[in-house]
Every structure is written in structure tokens, then in C-alpha cells.
């Protein structure tokens, strides 16, 4: 018994050792320095997942906490001269505790709201989910499966796939790429439920654009909006919407019916039939539309260029296998899989959390510095339920139901006009522990300056 106790005392003594503390501090420094290098090489997510949110980091912080506690226990009973030292160390423990609370129970996500619309979802950019819906004929979709996956840390392989069972066989996820530059590819297919795909070129002496349109659902047209002109693939309406637009409607014989509307009238300006290789004179600014390729049944797939490190244009992708066919899905994209009786919708998306209330964006403003396009300030006017409008701007967050909404950034359309505001949405239960700890620690550190001297100006002993 006494042996044991002396063993414990010895352990406490060595845990409280200053030399151990120095080693822990140097180890922690080296670890987080490595994190900054990973971030420079890749990105913040990689640094999080490879360094900061790992068992190594947790171990280092745990050792730090143990050492801080041990040294305070070791100095017990505390005397007056220990005040500064105890404050500094307790402060750090409080901050660490606050950090744990934030990590376990906090929320740190992003919310994008289009101007004039509302949203109730917060996206967590570092977490991903797999979702599978099925439709057995008709428009109703049933959720079959939902699963959190962390493919960044644990990618699937053909040997160890993620498997989702369906009545028509397994959907298997067999490969993952962290950083790919995608480019869309449309290929013809035999699947009955697939929609048509069409590649067109629109040009005049000044402009030439080539784009694909793929109609994914029979009741919803696929559209391309160039601002002054719109191209739609789908069933033409009787009346135009007051824009320059052309509707391309596939016919059963493989040809295409077109309907042209002008801005000044809701009645069709012209109509006709064309086919692959054909052209239509639109009469808008001398623009000519050519049908470069047409597939009555088309499927979208992605071509990739794999990258060693991320750029703002890269994304991640998973490969799935269903009934001997393989296909890639990009992050935050949905793929349709068809069998004779069923359509499956498979999504690989960032986790979305329903806040339980909508946030409406009335207005967004970007105020530039005089005579430039450099942003000076971003401002959003939003509405929370049962409240008047609230203004949220950089450095001036808004609060609702314990959540804090910060102005993070905004999104532009092709013409550079803002179309949506991006908020960072946050709940931090550890906040006050961190603030309190900070205050205590700062007092301790400053007090240590007075109490801990190397050589006293006059010899008064101690030190």
C-alpha cells in the first residue's frame, strides 16, 4: 500500500516536472507548426483533418492539461507567492475546457441565402453525408438511406466499399478522390427514364458560346440564362415571359421543335423544326443558334483532372458502382440511377442542418471604396421569424435563438451583381469559459512579470 502511494507520488512528481512541461510545449509547437505547413500545401480542411483534429493533437493537449494540473497539485498548499502562477495555469485549463465544449456541442456552419428568398439550412463544410432516395414511378421520392461518411480520412476502396442495399442490387462506393478539376461530359444512353441532352452554340460576330443542356426531369426544363437571352430545353409554354428566349422541344422522331419569343411580346415570334447540325436565326442582336449535338436520351458524367493540391475550382468526388456500371459523383451533386421500375437518386453532400426556422434575406449591399470596385463593407438585411428586419454587416453580427449570424461573404452572378449573401452561423457553448479563462490567465501572466525575477535589483532573497 505504501509502495503504491509512493509510486503515485513519484508519478505526480514527474508529471509536475518543469522539464516535462518544456517537452510538451515544444511537442505541441512542432505539431501545430506542421499543421500550418499542411494548410499552406493543401487547405484548411486538410490541416484540420490531418493535424488539428487528430488523436495526436488531443494527446498533446491532454498531456498539457495533466501537466498543468499536476504542477498545481504539487505546489499544494498554495501560498501567496503562488497566486500569479496558479492564475496563469488555471486560466489555461479554463480555455482548454471551453475548447472541448465548443468542439463537442458547438455549431460552426455556413448559410447561403439568395436575395429575396429564405433558407433554413446550415451547411457544415467539413462533414459529408451519403443520401439515397428512390422513386417507384411518379414524382414522390422516398428516402432509403442516410449515412455520414468521412472519405477524406477513410476513403472507400473496391475491396472495402460502402454498400447500400436496394431491391435492385447494391449501390457500392468504391473510390474517392480528394482534389479533382471536373468538366461535364454528356453521353448517350439507352435508359428509358433518362431525359434528352443537347449541345448548342450561340454566336454573332462578337459572341460565341457553346453549352450543354440536359433535361433531368420531364416536367422541368433545362435552361441557360445568358442575361439578354435564354435557351430552354423542354416543353414550350404558350406564352413567353417577356424575355428573349427560345424553347427547344424534342420530338419523337429525333428532330427538335423550336419556339422563339421576343422581349416585347408574350406571343411566339417564330417556330419551326430543326435537327442535329441545324440552325435557327433568333433575330436578337444577329445571334444564330446551332444545334451541335442531340441525344434523345442522355446521361451526365464527369471528366476529371486529378490535382495534387486543392484550388478554389477543385472538388472531391466518389465513384459508385451499380449493376456493373460505374459513375463518379462530385461533392454536393446528385446522380440518377435507373432500373426498369425504379429511379434512384444518390447524393454525396455536405451535411445540412435544419435550423427549425427560416431566415429571409431582404436586401444585400456591397459598398465599394470610392472610385473602385474594392469592397469596403458588406451589409445584409435579414428577417428572422416574428421580428423586424435586422441588419447584419461585417463585424456586426445578428443573434437569434442563441445562434449568431455573421456576414461572411457573398455570391455574384456572371455580370458581377451580388445574388446571395453568405453567413457564418455559430453556436458556441464554450465561449464564456474561454473568456473567463483568458482573463484569469492574462492577469496571471502579467503578475508573473512582477513576481518572477532573475536577479533582484537589491538582494532580497527568493526568486
Amino acid at each position, binding site marked *: 500500500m505504501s509502495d503504491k502511494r509512493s509510486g503515485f507520488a513519484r508519478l505526480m512528481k514527474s508529471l509536475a*516536472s*518543469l*522539464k516535462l*512541461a*518544456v517537452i510538451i*510545449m*515544444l511537442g*505541441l*509547437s512542432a505539431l*501545430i*507548426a506542421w*499543421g*500550418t*505547413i499542411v*494548410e*499552406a500545401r493543401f487547405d*484548411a480542411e486538410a490541416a*484540420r483533418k490531418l493535424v488539428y483534429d487528430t488523436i495526436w493533437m488531443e494527446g498533446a493537449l491532454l498531456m498539457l492539461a495533466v501537466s498543468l494540473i499536476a504542477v498545481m497539485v504539487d505546489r499544494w498548499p498554495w501560498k501567496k507567492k503562488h497566486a500569479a502562477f496558479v492564475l496563469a495555469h488555471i486560466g489555461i485549463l479554463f480555455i482548454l475546457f*471551453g*475548447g472541448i465544449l*465548443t468542439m463537442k456541442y458547438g455549431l*460552426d456552419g455556413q448559410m447561403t441565402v439568395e436575395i429575396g428568398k429564405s433558407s433554413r439550412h446550415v451547411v457544415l463544410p467539413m462533414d459529408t453525408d451519403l443520401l439515397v432516395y428512390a422513386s417507384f414511378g411518379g414524382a414522390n421520392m422516398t428516402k432509403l438511406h442516410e449515412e455520414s461518411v468521412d472519405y477524406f480520412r477513410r476513403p472507400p476502396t473496391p475491396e472495402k466499399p460502402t454498400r447500400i442495399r436496394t431491391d435492385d442490387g447494391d449501390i457500392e462506393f468504391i473510390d474517392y478522390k480528394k482534389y479533382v*478539376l471536373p468538366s461535364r461530359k454528356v453521353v448517350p444512353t439507352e435508359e428509358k427514364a433518362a431525359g434528352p441532352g443537347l449541345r448548342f452554340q450561340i454566336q454573332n460576330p462578337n459572341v460565341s458560346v457553346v453549352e450543354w443542356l440536359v433535361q433531368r426531369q420531364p416536367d422541368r426544363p433545362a435552361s441557360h440564362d445568358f442575361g439578354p437571352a435564354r435557351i430552354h430545353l423542354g416543353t414550350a409554354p404558350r406564352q413567353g415571359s417577356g424575355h428573349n428566349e427560345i424553347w427547344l422541344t424534342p420530338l419523337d422522331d429525333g428532330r427538335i421543335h423550336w419556339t422563339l419569343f421576343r422581349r416585347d411580346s408574350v406571343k411566339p415570334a417564330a417556330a419551326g423544326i430543326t435537327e442535329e447540325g441545324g440552325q435557327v436565326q433568333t433575330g436578337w442582336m444577329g445571334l444564330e443558334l446551332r444545334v451541335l449535338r442531340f441525344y434523345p436520351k442522355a446521361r451526365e458524367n464527369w471528366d476529371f483532372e486529378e490535382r495534387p493540391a486543392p*484550388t*478554389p*475550382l477543385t472538388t472531391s468526388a466518389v465513384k459508385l458502382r451499380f449493376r456493373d456500371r460505374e459513375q463518379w459523383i462530385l461533392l454536393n451533386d446528385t446522380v440518377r440511377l435507373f432500373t426498369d421500375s425504379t429511379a434512384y437518386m444518390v447524393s454525396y453532400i455536405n451535411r445540412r442542418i435544419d435550423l427549425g426556422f427560416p431566415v429571409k434575406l431582404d436586401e444585400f449591399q456591397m459598398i465599394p*471604396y*470610392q*472610385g*473602385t470596385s*474594392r*469592397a*469596403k*463593407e458588406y451589409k445584409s438585411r435579414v428577417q428572422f421569424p416574428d421580428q423586424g428586419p435586422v441588419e447584419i454587416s*461585417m*463585424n456586426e*453580427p445578428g443573434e437569434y435563438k442563441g445562434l*449568431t449570424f*455573421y456576414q*461572411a461573404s457573398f455570391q455574384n452572378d456572371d455580370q458581377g451583381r451580388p445574388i446571395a449573401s453568405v453567413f*457564418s*452561423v*455559430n453556436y*458556441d457553448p*464554450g*465561449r464564456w469559459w*474561454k*473568456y473567463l479563462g*483568458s482573463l484569469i*490567465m*492574462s492577469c496571471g*501572466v*502579467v503578475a*508573473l*512579470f512582477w513576481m*518572477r*525575477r*532573475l*536577479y533582484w*535589483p537589491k538582494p532580497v532573497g527568493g526568486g
Partner: protein
Amino acid sequence: MKMKRWVLVAMMAVGAVFRAEAGVKTGEALRALPVQDGGRVKPYDTFAQETLNGIYGKKTYEGRDAWEIVLTWMLAPTVWADKEIFELRNKDLLSALGLDSSRRWFKGDEIFGKERFPELMQDLRARRESKEKLSPYFQDLQRLENQWFLFREMATGRLLRVLPPADGDTWIPVADLPAEAQPRFLEITQEFIARLSGVEGSPERLDRAVVAFEDFARARNPQLVPSKLHIATEIFYSDFHPFRWAYVAYLLGAVALLLFWSFNKNYFVTAAWVFILAGFLLNTVGFGLRVYLAGRPPVSNMYETVVWVAWGAVLFAMILEALYKTRLILLAGAITGWLALVVADSAPVVLDPSLQPLEAVLRSNYWLIIHVMTITISYAAFFLAFILGDVGLIYHLKNPRQHADKIRGVVNAIYRCMQIGVAFLAPGIILGGVWADYSWGRFWGWDPKETWALIVLLGYLAVLHGRLSGWIKDFGLLITAVVTFSLVIMAWYGVNFVLGAGLHSYGFGAGGVEYVGGFLFLHFLFVVYVWILHRSRAPSAR
């Protein structure tokens, strides 16, 4: 009492320099003409210097001031087609364009007339669309594009915005001046040309034309034009170079102290105090002028923090010197202030001295200013400890036993500096957390800048704890003062210029890595050399 007299002498010296520099000379009123550029209204003089520097890489051209040169681009662009004014130093770009890599300046046609040039621009556009980080090659190509843009826009009168609008806040460039303003501006250009050709009485007439135009502009929309005092202050600041005078004064102070040790005359110490106080005053005045001009404490880019650190290091040195009276602390302070300001003054590409409006994230935020100032002032204390470490190691090299007292004084000062640094850095990092929490919604996010500040803190805490545990003794403290400062260099400079990633990217630039790296490397060699000598000495001689 004595102190008071020194302060007085120092202030009088500073005042004398001021008087010599104040005021714009006859024929130079044009320099004070308010123009809009880069998101603010500034004197034409500043605009001209920045534009000339952007194209030519210098603020004067063949001995002539920028304000005389830049306007002639607009008045006689064809003359300039034959002059070598476009600076291009990137060897890869020069060879891509098939240009002589031993030259530094080129005619516009030599670069932009090359068949390869449009292809390079295409590459640049493709690179930008890929949204990948631009390599130095592409950064320089981008600069070239900007040089061409600046010159063309200046030559066509679209760059120089001289007239405030009746509505809105975008000023009207010379090319689009309304009819009632045109003759007034024409007057300026005519007298300007007359002055250049030395016509008698033209300087006075030019001044009158400028004043008339400025009054006209001011009357059009008084709110958009800064006060005359503001404009005059900016010209004074740019002419006076307070930080240049400050480092001269610091250097003289350091020299005076060295003379004291050579000749052992006390009046050299007095002189050193006077010089250093004068330098500190100039440093303060320069800082104050920037606060007035920018309307905020100037700690938003590397240049401004270097100036702030010089100020802090000298302040800490003077306080510690007053407490411990070793004279070595004062010497170290003078050297630190001199070194920091010389570096700030000599690397305008890396440390941009121009006054820029703040990025949106940084605007109107009290916590931002506080946390940056607190953290960087801790770097001042560590910088001082670093120079003290050098001083101590030099004494160690000479003879540790003979100089035991001096080394002891230095070690004590280093320990105090480290304590001061930690006492500012720890709360500073926390204030940074408060700011991040307040404006981004998170207290800590492992952003490289904040992470490296934490690494610095942990590094110095490790040293202080190592000292307590007995691992680090006096000699060890000298060494760690020098070595640990490399962490500060990394946090302060390396994150922006070496790592170049993260949310703090608004302060990012490029260049100078080889010099900073060389500086650190030489110091490591020095430390290793002294350490080997220390080990080889008999223990009794240590």
C-alpha cells in the same frame, strides 16, 4: 532633472529639422492638387510617385521628381514611346519575351509590341481562371500587365481623376472633364509645360492656375475633397521621411555609446540619450502623422508593423535602461530601432509604405487594432532580446570571465524582455481570439497567423520554463534569445511571405525570403560558433 534637459534638447533638434522641411516651394502647388486614386483622395504628388514607382520601380526618373514626369506622359505620350521606363527584372519573363536579361528597363514597344506578348497574357488569364496561386513568374507578368495599363490609362487621361462628381463618389478623369472644367485644367497643363521649358513667371502662374482649379473642384462637391491641411500633411510626410531621420538618430546614438566605451567620457552617454530620444520622437511623430493621414492606427501591413516594432523596442530599451543602467540595453535598443527602420525603408516592394484603404474585414474594428498592436509590441520585446543576445554572445566571444558583469546585465535584460514579450503576447493572442469571435464567430480557427503567434508564445514559455527548471543557464538564455527569435520572424514575416496561406491573406506579398533566410542562417552559424567555443573552454573559464 537631467533627463528633462535631454528631452528638451532632443525636441529642439527635431523641431529644427521640421522647419527646414515644411512648406511647398513656388511652382510646386500642383503637387498638392487632390486626385482620386486607389480608393481614396490623395495629393497628386503621392499619386505621381506611386504611379512612377509602379511602372519604373523608382520614385524619381533621371533626377526629376515623379510629379514632373507623370503628367508629361499624358501631355506628350509619343516622346515617352522612346524612353526605357518599363521595369522588368524577372529573368524567366525576359527570356520568354526574348529580351536582354542584363537590362532592367525597356521601351514600351520592346515589351508590349512583341508577338509573344498576347500569348503570355493568354497564359495569365488561363492561370487566373484556374484560381490557383500565382507563381512569382505570373505575379511579375501580372505586374507587367498593370504597368502597361497604368501607362496607357495615364497617357489617355483616364487615370488622373481630378474633379469630384456632383453626385456619387467616383471622380472624373481628365479625359471626361465637363466643358466648364476643361479650360481650367488646360491652363494648368499650359503653365506646366511653360514651367518645364523655363519660361519666366510660369511657376507663379502655374501655382495660380492650380489653386484656381482646386477652388473650382472644391466648390463643386466640398465633402469629397479632403482639407488643405490633410493634403499638405501628406506632402510633408512624404518629403520629410520622419522614419529615415529616426534611424539616423538611432544610429548616431549607438555610435555615441560605442565611443563612450572607447574613450570612457560620460558626455558620450548624454549624447547617446539625446540622439535616441530624438529618434524616438521622430519615430513617434512619423507614426502620429500616419495615424492622422489614414484615420486609424497604422498596423495593417508589414511596413506599418515594422515601424511600430521599432518604436516599441526603443521604448522598452529606454525603460529597462532607466531601471538597470547597463548602457548595453540602450545600445541594443538603438540598434534594434535602427535595424527595423532601415529594413522598412529599404524594401518598398516587400514592405509597402504607401497608405492603402483597409480590406472590408478589417474596417472600423477596435479589437483588430488592439490585438495587432498588442501582439506586434511583444515582437518588439523579443526583437530587443534578440539583439541583446547578440551583444551578450559577442562579450562571451571576447572573454566571459572578464565581462561577467556585463553578461549578467544582458542576461537579466533578456529575461525581462522575454517576460514583457510574453505578458503582451499572451493577452494579444487572446484579444485576437476575441476579435475573431466578434467578427468571424469563432474564438480560435487554426489560421496560420494565429497559430504561429501561439507557437512563438509556446517557444518563449518553453525558454522561461527551461530557465526555471535549470536546463537553461545564463549562456543558454543568450543563445535562446537569438534562436527563439526565428519563431517571431516566421510568425511575423514567414506566414505571409513563406507559407502564404490562410485567412490573413490580405497582408500578403512576395520577396525578400533569401535575405531574411540569410540573416537567420548567419545568426545560427554565429550561435553555433560561440557555442562550440564555449564547450571547448575549460569549465572553470566558462
